[in-house]
């Protein structure tokens, strides 16, 4: 996993024309720690996650990815992060295996079918299943999203309501997995309103409604 990446963001604000989503949000996430983002619905948790992972530009403020004192350039962020978010879907027409194979190929990962099957089993999906994702339950889709996020073994993980559709067994497994990931030096940003998930991390950023 390398040296780990520290994310520093300061005075971040976002506005769509007249509508201000949030402003003046600052924080730091160190390798091996979990930052918990909380706030009522519509407070901009997902927007902030999008800004932190580089999908959206902030109207104000800065976001930096740092390895020691060296800054990682914005266009390189995507090599270092994985994300699980409700607003980010997989390809419904493809099977679970085809989805993972596609993401492995566009990331230029050297993975064969056995590697992919292994990952599918890790998240609790049957690798022999050949139905398109559109027929999956939301919980199974969530598991596949998790598989997609861990595919390239990223240093940073963004989780937006990760346990929302998992069954209790899946939630327990995933909590353990995230704890192990952080313990191994991973950087985690967790956006959630789930009381149990809020206990995962020590640092907290609260967005006002």
């Amino acid at each position, binding site marked *: 996993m390398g040296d780990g990446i520290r994310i520093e963001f300061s005075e971040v604000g976002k506005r769509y024309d007249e509508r201000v989503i949030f402003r003046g949000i600052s924080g730091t996430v160190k390798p091996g720690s979990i930052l918990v983002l909380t706030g009522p619905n519509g407070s901009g948790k997902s927007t902030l996650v999008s800004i932190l992972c*580089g*999908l959206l530009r902030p109207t104000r403020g800065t976001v930096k990815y740092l390895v020691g004192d060296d800054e990682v350039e914005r266009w390189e962020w*995507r090599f270092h992060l994985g*994300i699980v978010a409700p607003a*980010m*879907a997989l390809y419904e027409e*493809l099977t679970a295996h*085809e989805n993972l194979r596609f993401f492995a*190929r566009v990331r230029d990962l050297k993975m064969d079918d056995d590697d992919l099957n292994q990952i599918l089993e890790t998240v609790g999906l049957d690798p022999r299943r050949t139905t398109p994702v559109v027929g999956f339950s939301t919980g199974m889709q969530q598991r596949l999203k998790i598989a997609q996020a861990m595919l390239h073994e990223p240093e940073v993980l963004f989780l937006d309501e990760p346990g929302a559709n998992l069954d209790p067994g899946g939630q327990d497994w995933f909590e353990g997995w995230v704890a192990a990931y952080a313990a191994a030096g991973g950087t985690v940003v967790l956006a959630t309103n789930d009381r149990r998930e809020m206990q995962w991390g020590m640092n907290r950023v609260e967005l006002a409604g």
Partner: protein
Amino acid sequence: MSSLLAEALAVAAKDLRTEFRTRVALNALGLFALTTLAAVSYTIGPYRIAEADRPYLLSALLWVVILFASLAGLDRTFVKEEESHTAPLLRLSAGPHAVWLGKLLFNLGLLAALMVILVPLFIVLMGLPLVLHFGWLVAVLAAGGFALAVITTIVAAIIARAMTRGALFAVLSLPLLLPLVIFAIQGTAGVASGEIEIVHQSLRAMISFGGIMVVVSAALFPVIWGE
């Protein structure tokens, strides 16, 4: 470079696979083209137009059908990624140039498929004497189709990031496509009337326009995609 091509092919293959399972773009393109062709051939047919006017008028009709069929379907590849919310993960996984090249290849494939079916039908139904200079016809169609795919691909990338996408695609594409369509009609008419000098001229214009648009698109696509 080779990894860029491999990644682009992965994107194009993924799009082809989903397209074969849903057939949204193929249906839009194909049905539009065939319906228009049927209407045109029924109302005008081969003999309504005087012999001397045929090369120009029929070439214009052919390119109007191709143009509007393209506007009906070539935005799907980007719009679908946004509508089904798959764009964010694609953005975070694939490099922008691989996405652009993959989508361009996919649109080129769609357009080629359309032309392979539409043009022979058009020749047969409308009696356009294009077969005499078959090589030149293929050259004009290839050069025109290439530039058409390049421009519609970059505009599709823009409108996919805006609201009211359907209407915007035509509004933004048409001003950029107008010179191309004029050149293409000129070239096709040149082929039909056997004036190879005009074909040369239009080919030069289309190739330079398409070439410049490729360079500009490749340079600007990361801006659109990353925003």
